[in-house]
């Protein structure tokens, strides 16, 4: 059972790289604890900026730092980062093309019973709709590490969403194939394709195992790069299967499901079923309880696949 949440994997990379690269900066909005970035603030006080509870300020200050040669990582709960500072992300980061990495922590419904103010079920849609904004939802700690290392190599805006709790590994330290903006096909099967992102990838993979026992062969795609969507890998994965299922921790509109449906509908039309959170405040509970309730787990995905067979 993995104990390291993806947010901590981000901190580990930044701690490592900041030793050599003094331009790396971390910014938090009273969020260093929840972002697992307190060790960074301790180790590199000169490379850390605290804005207080001011997400708009956080993003604009990051843009200003970036414009003057810094490499800022702005970390704040995904709910506030993606909606409160939406215009700052649109204008100061994406439109002005500043080298800011926005880190949305405790994404999706990580905050469980705290309710809709604290859920970010709109962030993929919102951020993806901005020209020049890239959107990434890494599936486990190993991929998170590879992604952050890759983002340190380029100078373009990006939004990364991670959850609060540790997730089961999809990859391992030795085996984590990673190419920027290239999705991974995790299993290949001829019957159905399951395309997932972020922390829904692991249950999608587990669903494939359940299906295999029932004689149904599933292709599973880890589409961590929601934008730019890897259409090449997507089309390869859906070619030949009879139906496609998308799975995401997001509202049913404008997220991974919408984007996959667009591509499949245009290039190789077939049935695409979107599994997502409802278009409503979700039921009160821990994220596990909520996922189970809406069938966003291995059993639920497998059951949906069987319906389509």
């Amino acid at each position, binding site marked *: 059972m993995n104990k390291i949440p993806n947010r901590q994997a981000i901190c580990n990379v930044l701690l490592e790289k900041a030793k050599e690269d003094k331009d790396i900066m971390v910014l938090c909005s*009273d969020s260093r*604890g929840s972002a697992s970035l307190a060790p960074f603030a301790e180790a590199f006080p000169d490379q850390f900026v605290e804005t207080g*509870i001011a997400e708009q300020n956080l993003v604009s200050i990051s843009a200003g730092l970036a414009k003057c040669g810094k490499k800022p990582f702005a970390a704040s709960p995904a709910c506030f980062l993606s909606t409160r500072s939406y215009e700052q992300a649109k204008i100061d980061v994406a439109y002005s093309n500043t080298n800011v990495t926005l880190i949305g922590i405790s994404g999706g419904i990580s905050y469980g019973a705290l309710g*809709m103010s604290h859920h970010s079920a709109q962030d993929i849609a919102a951020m993806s709709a901005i020209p020049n904004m890239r959107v990434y939802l890494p599936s486990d700690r190993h991929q998170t590490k590879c992604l952050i290392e890759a983002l340190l190599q380029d100078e373009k805006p990006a939004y990364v969403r991670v959850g609060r709790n540790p997730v089961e590994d999809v990859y391992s330290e030795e085996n984590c194939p990673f190419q920027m903006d290239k999705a991974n096909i995790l299993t290949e099967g001829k019957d159905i394709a399951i395309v997932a992102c972020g922390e829904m990838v692991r249950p999608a993979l587990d669903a494939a195992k359940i299906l295999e026992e029932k004689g149904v062969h599933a292709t599973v795609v880890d589409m961590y790069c929601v934008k730019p969507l890897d259409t090449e890998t997507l089309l390869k994965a859906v070619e030949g299967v009879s139906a496609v299922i998308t799975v995401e921790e997001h509202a049913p509109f404008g997220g991974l499901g919408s984007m996959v449906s667009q591509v499949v509908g245009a290039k190789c039309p077939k049935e695409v079923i979107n599994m997502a959170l409802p278009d409503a405040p979700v039921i009160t509970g821990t994220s596990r*309880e909520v996922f189970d309730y809406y069938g966003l787990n291995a059993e639920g995905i497998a059951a949906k696949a069987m319906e389509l067979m």
Partner: protein
Amino acid sequence: MIMENLKAKAFDLRKDVVNMIMEGKGGHIGGDMSVMEILMSLYFCQMNVTPENQDSPDRDRFVLSKGHSVEAYYAVLAAKGFLDIQDVIKKFSKFGSSYIGHPNNKLPGIEMNSGSLGHGLPVCVGMALAGKKDHRDYRVYTVMGDGELAEGSVWEGFMAGHQYKLDNLCAVIDRNRLQISGNTEDVMGHDDLGERIRSFGWHVIEVKNGNDIDALNKAFEEAKTVKGQPTAIIADTTKGYGSAVMENKANWHHKVPTQEEYQQIMADFEARKEAALNE
């Protein structure tokens, strides 16, 4: 008529809060404790809001801008007859519950949903403005955290409150000097907060002991007499008030007590309650 001893009752309501947090396995305990007397003063002494008149257009309005202190709010709403406290304690934050970790206006007595900081004051500007337009003499109250004041929207609200001369508006600041990452003055300081808000054209009242209901009532009464400008009450409170286990400790912002801490906290509340009864 025997006046209820509100100072003692404050510790009974604190016990409700801690029981809620133990049951629900989560909660913003520190800010619940600092804001308790502010909510009690408003609901038991100041505002004309009851379960009977909750739909009246003339009721006073309240928005808990620091929505994370919802546990204290539930306890006060229950004591006021809006909610059943046993039901709240049993179900708080549990699967399928309507008592979530922030105010939700599907519940009786709650006007607005909150939880994202920096919304309450501008919303209350709207409510106060509506009262002026409709020539109704209800008053509008909000409570903000001091860390919350870093949100720019708060200062936009201060500007608008002054611009529209909203003397029916009163903003309380729970000045406990702590937020998640530590001391507010280290995170994003306010220098002389009273002077700052005064310079935005507000009448400012500084309450030295913001956990003293009498002092708070006095401030709210003064606010009612102010004409032509809104009032801000800066209540110097103690985060975690009621037990040395959590008083003035930043790491008690959001925390579930251990069994040992629970016993100690409850004993401390009981002792303070006794002291209040014997005062």
